[in-house]
């Protein structure tokens, strides 16, 4: 392009002149640019025909020959005109990862708990599925990761299981729900007696208390005077069938003993529970979740705290 360089086109002007010598250049667009522009116009027209495009009243033109057909999760065949939502729905049903995870889900459905718990891949799959289920259904009370809320909702990640920590127990808890009840002893005991029972309960798990008071509390606890042993057992270890707490371990689900500093505060916390009683309800999920979902959640919750 060295010596062949000749002016190909001189710049043209529109021909007007203002104030004597001010001219207006006329630089038409390059042809390739124009053609690219025409191409976009053609593209737009084609697009209008085949894709949703124009608003019409409260609806819109849906386009022609663009049906998306897929089999929904309930087995019915659905046909929708092209839109990104339909694409997503189809992908959720028929996409590669959807098909894969459905296959895996069937494998988990068909396996018993023993097999699932012993299979690393099934455990990993279950966990990945159950995290979402747990987040949608259980997290509002039990917290993400099952940490619970002191006094209200039990911690699912520790090794204490009020209603039992075997997979069977956990499955029953989730599908049928639980109702935890401890009567209020405000009417039964006077203030002194409430103090004594609280002292005894603290002594059960090795907390420092006034031993004379605890001795008096023990009598109330273990005789029909107080009757605490009906539910918590003479040794205070609780009963799974009742959902009664084990009072001899280090876990407190209602009285915030670990959070209290001084012995007097701890005693006050326990005393309040005895005086007020406890009422806690875990709703049943059998209506809202299907069997597979409950199975996934059971394995997940079991794994959180290590199960029993």
């Amino acid at each position, binding site marked *: *392009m*060295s*010596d*062949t*360089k000749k*002016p*190909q*086109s*001189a*710049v*043209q*002007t*529109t*021909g007007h002149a203002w104030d004597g010598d001010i*001219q207006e*250049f006329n*630089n038409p667009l*390059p042809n390739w640019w124009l053609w690219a522009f025409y191409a976009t116009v053609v593209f737009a027209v084609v697009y209008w025909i085949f894709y949703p495009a124009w608003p019409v009243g409260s609806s819109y033109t849906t386009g022609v020959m663009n049906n998306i057909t897929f089999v929904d999760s309930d087995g019915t065949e659905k046909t929708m005109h092209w839109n990104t939502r339909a694409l997503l729905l189809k992908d959720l049903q028929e996409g*590669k990862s959807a098909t894969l995870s459905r296959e895996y889900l069937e494998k988990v459905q068909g396996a018993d708990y023993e097999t699932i*718990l*012993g299979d*690393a*891949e099934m*455990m*990993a799959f279950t*966990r*990945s599925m159950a995290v979402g289920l747990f987040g949608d259904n259980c997290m509002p009370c039990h*917290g*993400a*990761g*099952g*940490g619970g809320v002191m006094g209200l909702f039990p*911690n699912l*990640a*520790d*090794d*204490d299981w009020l209603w039992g920590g075997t997979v069977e127990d956990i499955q029953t808890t989730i599908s049928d729900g639980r109702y935890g009840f401890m009567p209020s002893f405000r009417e039964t005991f006077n203030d002194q007696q409430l103090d004594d029972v609280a002292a005894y309960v603290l002594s059960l798990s090795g907390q420092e208390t006034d031993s004379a008071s605890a001795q008096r509390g023990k009598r109330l606890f273990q005789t029909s005077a107080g009757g605490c042993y009906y539910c918590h057992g003479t040794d205070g270890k609780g009963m799974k069938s009742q959902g009664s707490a*084990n009072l001899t*371990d*280090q*876990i407190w689900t209602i009285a915030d003993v*670990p959070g209290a500093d001084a012995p007097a505060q701890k005693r006050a916390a326990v005393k309040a529970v005895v005086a007020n009683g406890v009422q806690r309800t875990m709703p049943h999920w059998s209506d809202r979740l299907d069997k597979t979902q409950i199975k996934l959640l059971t394995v997940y919750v079991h*794994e*959180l*705290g*290590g*199960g029993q």
Partner: protein
Amino acid sequence: MTDSASQVLYQARIPIYPRSVKGRFRTLKWGILTFAYGVYFLLPWLRWERNAGPDQAVLFDIADRKFYLFDLVMHAQDLFWLTGFLLVAALLLFFVTSIAGRVFCGYFCFQTLWTDLYLLIERLVQGDRVARIRLDKSPWTANKFLRKVLTHILWLAAAFLTGLTFTLYWGNAPELIVEWFTGKAPFAAYATTLFLTITTYVMAGLAREQVCTYMCPYARFQSVMFDEDTRIVAYDVARGEGKAGRHKVTRDLKTLEQRQQQGVGECIDCGYCVQVCPTGIDIRNGLQVQCISCALCIDACDTIMGSLGWDKGLIRYTSEKQAEGKESRILKPKTIAYGLVLLAAIAALLWGVSNQAPLEMSVVQVRQPLFVRLSDGRVQNSYELHIENKTDQPLKLAIMMRGLAGAELDVGKLSSVEIGPQRSLRVHARVRWNSGNRHKGSRSFEFDLIPQTQPEIGMISAPATFYMPGGDS
């Protein structure tokens, strides 16, 4: 209304009609082209036995985040190899450029290879240079129309094959091609094919030398790697021009003696070297930025010199120093430095590839809840172990921990985990510990993974921290 002011703002492209030529460099270039196309178009179809994974020799599996290159499987964590590879490629380019100039452009560049193919198609349909120029100047007839349309159809077909083949590298070729033509392939496959088809057609068919001249960054910076010792395609001015310049062969300027007597050079000004040049330059004007070192002008001039019975090499590979009759060195400090850095980079890449860890583990601590207190007063932390088996055999692994005296590790009923070839797995693990109040806050320890099958892999470890809340327990 047309009042021209004599200024040029925009110059249209002057069409170039490269003429065909025969010669040793042209033959070499056809050889390279055949080989390169053979590799490019056939490689996706090459099958490869693997214990695990697809049986395609070269496959870039984006969905599974694995690149298969014969017996090498590249995982997402190995992506830095790509950096290494690009670095080696760049250094190689520097090294070669400083010694031999733009050999990459002339012989190996995709733009050159595909333009060659397109020129071949053009020549087969429309004839050689003169015929093409005549055809372009002639009015539109059915013949012209047919030839033009056929050229573009063949160009598009070549572009489509190129695009489709590129797409086949990213999926199982025999399956993907059936899916492609039955409308079942993923959208990305169509988009990729379309994109590559269009770019090939535009670049090799329409833009051609303009890519090298205006778009290619390498063309812009290669000049800094040139020096007076670099081999370039050059015209021997002293020999070609003599004292009185070049001259056509006429009756009294026929033999070398006649020409030498009159001081005329050996260039017979036939213009063949200019006509064959794919970038449309005249090499006799000296080294120019457009020259892609394709050496076709050497072939052209050698043909002319040969037919006249004169010495070949009026246009030849030479260096600036050589052309001036001085000694020219190939290995000088700069080239040696490039070479050493290149060797170091190759060594580092090879080391990285050959030391690919067969087994990897990373640990993420579960943060919700960060810890729980257990019934016996101990504290429990949970972890998610991400284990990746990069071997092509299933592995049985024992998970252990180390570094927290008296701590207990619980991975449920998974006394040992089994993990398939080329697979990864997440395992939820719980660690229980009572520091006896000696430690609060974070404490480091390690998870160990001990292969029970293939013990030669050896134990691998990953660090983790245990969080011990303050206060009494």
